């Protein structure tokens, strides 16, 4: 499948069109704030349209994962090629992009959340130009990670996200923004360095032979790294179940666990969320966290199937702790944003538990949960943003009775919260169910304990609804305006998805089913 526009592939468009936006934004004068906002909205809007085209043309039956020929919308060009030299052979870094069932949902999610983030950034008035330039750069980084099939490219996009995020939290954030920004930066940078070392070790271990010329070529191509036959004998990652392969798996895992974030690497998240401006929280919870689990599925699992099987219990246990611990922490919060931050830890734990099961049900559940959680937390952070915009407060005990004051707002919020709680008929239920079903097959007791997390979740969410929306509202909030048209624009598409995927999840599951079954099979066969 190939789609091109002006001779440039659709994936290049969807990744780099925000960069075009950055350039236009930088050329516009600072005073033309609305023009700048419109450019950002237009650019991310185009991304949504492109994502729609991808969704429509995506072939649901193709496998992907480790088979280059069944990736879709593939673009592959030479980027850095250093001719053969006696001691290392030829070096190749390629501009290699493509999507399969694993990444297609993430691409759609990124486009959608980015667009909604722009809409909810509309009333940011401080240095609008810088804000949107960094925002669009961040979008390019996120989108790039999801479509890269070359480790080098993947790594560059991965790191490109950090700096814009650092500035977005650090300049536009709340009172403790510096602390939160540097904490986020340091945590993720540690992970990045670990990934860099693994990437290099893989690079020196993997070489394929070009059948036409007979040259041995070292490569960053992720698909070549998945093939055990490509490992050079005697190299550091050669073999199966070796110590170095376990170490490499763990290093990669720590990187992704920081991003997910999985207990005990989660402490940066509450700080970052609380200090970040609303749209950035939306991006952070909606897309950035998914990069962690996506990285596990795209890199760790197929490249190190031996390590994955060896450490599957570790993943499951950490997932379980995240579910329970995150839920308890959420219950203890007075700050609305912190509550959602910890609920994210809890919900991402379900993803990890699901994918660690290493069966199709669990994986489908996990990936679907990634998508659903992205949508749901986006709604929840927008809900906080709305009330924070109006009152500059977000303490759970500051409000009460908002249901009478802002009925439309309350309706939206309650749908989002019930989805987070896992109410049947809304999207969260489907994916959580699949994740737990898959996990139950693989680890019975861990799953049973984990499921109690749902009850705690129900408790803190109902309690939150009670504290914020029910009861009697304080006098100063009796005249709060309800949702504006612009805010509705941000909410409506997300609500539609929440309900639609709740009653009819098939379109999303169809997208990834064949790829994920293939991935499960691949791990089971040790990469062959």
């Amino acid at each position, binding site marked *: 499948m190939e789609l091109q526009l002006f001779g440039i592939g659709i994936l290049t468009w969807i990744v780099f069109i925000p960069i075009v936006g950055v350039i236009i934004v930088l050329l516009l004068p600072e005073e033309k704030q609305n023009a700048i906002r419109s450019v950002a909205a237009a650019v991310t809007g185009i991304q949504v349209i492109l994502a729609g085209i991808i969704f429509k043309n995506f072939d649901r039956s193709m496998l992907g994962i480790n088979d280059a020929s069944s990736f879709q919308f593939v673009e592959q060009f030479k980027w*850095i090629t250093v001719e053969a030299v006696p001691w*290392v052979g030829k070096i190749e870094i390629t501009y290699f992009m493509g999507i399969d069932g694993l990444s297609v949902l993430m691409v759609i999610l990124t486009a959608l959340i980015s667009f909604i983030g722009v809409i909810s950034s509309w009333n940011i008035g401080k240095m609008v130009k810088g804000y949107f330039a960094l925002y669009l750069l961040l979008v390019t980084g996120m989108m790039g990670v999801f479509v890269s099939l070359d480790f080098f490219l993947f790594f560059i996009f991965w790191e*490109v996200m950090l700096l814009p995020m650092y500035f977005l939290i650090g300049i536009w954030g709340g009172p403790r923004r510096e602390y939160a920004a540097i904490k986020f930066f340091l945590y993720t940078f540690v992970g990045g360095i670990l990934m860099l070392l693994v990437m*290099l070790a893989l*690079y020196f271990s993997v070489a394929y032979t070009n059948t036409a010329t007979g040259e041995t070529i070292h490569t960053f191509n992720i698909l070549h790294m998945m093939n055990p036959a490509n490992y050079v004998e005697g190299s550091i990652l050669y073999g199966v179940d070796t110590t170095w392969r376990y170490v490499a798996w763990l290093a990669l895992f720590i990187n992704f666990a920081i991003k997910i974030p999985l207990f005990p690497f989660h402490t940066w998240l509450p700080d970052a969320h609380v200090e970040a401006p609303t749209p950035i929280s939306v991006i952070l919870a909606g897309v950035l966290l998914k990069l962690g689990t996506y990285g596990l599925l795209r890199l760790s699992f197929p490249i190190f199937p031996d390590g994955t099987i060896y450490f599957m219990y570790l993943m499951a246990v950490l997932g379980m702790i995240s579910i329970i611990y995150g839920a308890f922490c959420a219950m203890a919060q007075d700050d609305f944003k912190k509550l959602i931050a910890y609920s994210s830890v809890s919900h991402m734990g379900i993803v990890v538990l699901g994918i660690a099961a290493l069966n199709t049900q669990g994986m489908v559940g996990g990936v679907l949960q990634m998508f659903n959680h992205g949508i749901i937390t986006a709604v929840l952070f927008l809900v906080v943003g709305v009330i924070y915009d109006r009152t500059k407060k977000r303490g759970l005990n500051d409000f009460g009775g908002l249901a009478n004051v802002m009925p439309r707002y309350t309706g939206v919020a309650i749908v989002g919260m019930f989805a987070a709680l896992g109410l049947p008929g809304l999207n969260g239920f489907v994916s959580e169910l699949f994740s737990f079903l898959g996990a139950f097959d693989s680890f019975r007791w861990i799953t049973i304990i984990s499921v109690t997390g749902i009850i705690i979740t129900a408790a803190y969410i109902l309690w939150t609804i009670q504290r914020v929306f029910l009861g009697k509202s304080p006098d100063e909030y009796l005249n709060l305006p309800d949702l504006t048209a612009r805010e509705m624009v941000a909410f409506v598409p997300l609500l539609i998805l929440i309900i639609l995927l709740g009653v009819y999840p098939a379109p999303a599951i169809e997208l990834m089913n064949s790829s994920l079954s293939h991935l499960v099979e691949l791990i089971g066969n040790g990469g062959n």
Partner: protein
Amino acid sequence: MVENILNSIGHFYPEISIVVTLCAVIIADLLLKRENHTISWIFLAGLTVTGLLVLQQTGINSSIFHDMAAVDPFAVFFKVILIIASFFIVLFSIKSRELDPYLSRLAEYYMLIAGMLLGMFLMVGSTNLLLIYLAFEMTSISSYVLAGFTKRALKSAEGSVKYIMYGAVSSGIMLYGISLLIGITSATDIYGVNAALAAGIEQPIILYIAILMIIVGIGFKIALVPFHFWAPDVYEGAPITITAYLSVASKVAAIALMIRLFKVSFMDAGSVQIIGDWPIFEGLNWNMLLAFMAAMAMIAGNLTALKQDNIKRMLAYSSIAHAGYILMGFVVLTDEGITAIMIYVFLYLFMNLGAFYVAMLFSNKLSTESIEKYKGLGYRAPMECIAMTIFLIALTGFPPTAGFVAKLYIFGAAISAGWIWLALIAGVTTVISLFYYIRVVRNMFFFKSDGISEPLVFDAGSKVILFLLLIPVLLFGVYFTPIIEFARYSLKMFGM
């Protein structure tokens, strides 16, 4: 004899051109008015001619003046770096306000730079132990004086004196090591040394002592831990142009000298491919020693930099840390390791000079080098601050900047040779380095300036220089094939 000298002179034009430039500067000083930068432009012209002559030498691989020095791709590579660095330093000097009170002594300033450059040119090419020492001293003595050039500034004088004291002791030790080496091998050119060592010597312990002593001398020049104590004071005291020059040029020259000396004289020609397997060094775990020094440099440099408030001092410690990263390639010392070093120093040149340049621009306007005083600058001089951010994240090693490519290759060399623990230390210290580099960025952007908000305006010339440094940092970050090809091509040394 005469024929050899005549032929050799044919390969000696760049050095001759530097001497001519030096003389031209002196004559210009006698004839011209001294209150402007005419001399700078004359010097720049001289450098351009020298640069062109260096480019003429590409492809030549020969020995000159009876094995005194080599003109080979390896030397040419480093000469190109030195010329680029010198070129930028002259441009910096033209823009520097710090040198304004000394305009009448500008000829002296350039004379010393020319002397230093000549010394460094000889350092990267010399293949004779005596010439090595001469070149080394020529560079050192010029740099002692340059470090104290703004002699009315107390710190400058202090730094200069410290530099001389340390320098004199360590070059004395190095000279002793060289004399021991000559004594046991009865050869002064490094090929002869290699032949004598390969034939076997009776008392290897003397050889080891000689090698350690030579490492002390070179380590001083590169500011390796534990020979680095001079660096922060000298870097802080010296005029910022000279600090930038010392942190790049003299370091690069000493690294080139070290590589050539070790590879040609101590390595068995047959064992180039084999990691650390040098028959001559049997019994001395030399690469463990160097790995330890590299780790020390990375840890000490990065940890000490955390506490600094003076930007020059901070960059001084950061450059100590970078010497540690470079030394990682030296620990490996396969062709891969040396290529990584060459790529590293080439890219380091631009990002480090860039950081110093922006620091100089700010110091011109604000008369301060304190990082705390950078608060809110991001809103007063956005373009310069964005450039500074890019230089600093490049120094950290972030993609998509050139710094990432440099780190990638040096880490890669260590990993492919199995030095995982060293690569891990390098990784951890890189994270530490993020902390102090990003502190500058944080001060520039996360704070409002204290009451002052009028923009800092820089002239077009300053901006052009900024872009000359910025473009390579960004360009080589995404497309680095040319620099890698250049480095691989330049691996060739005469006699290897």
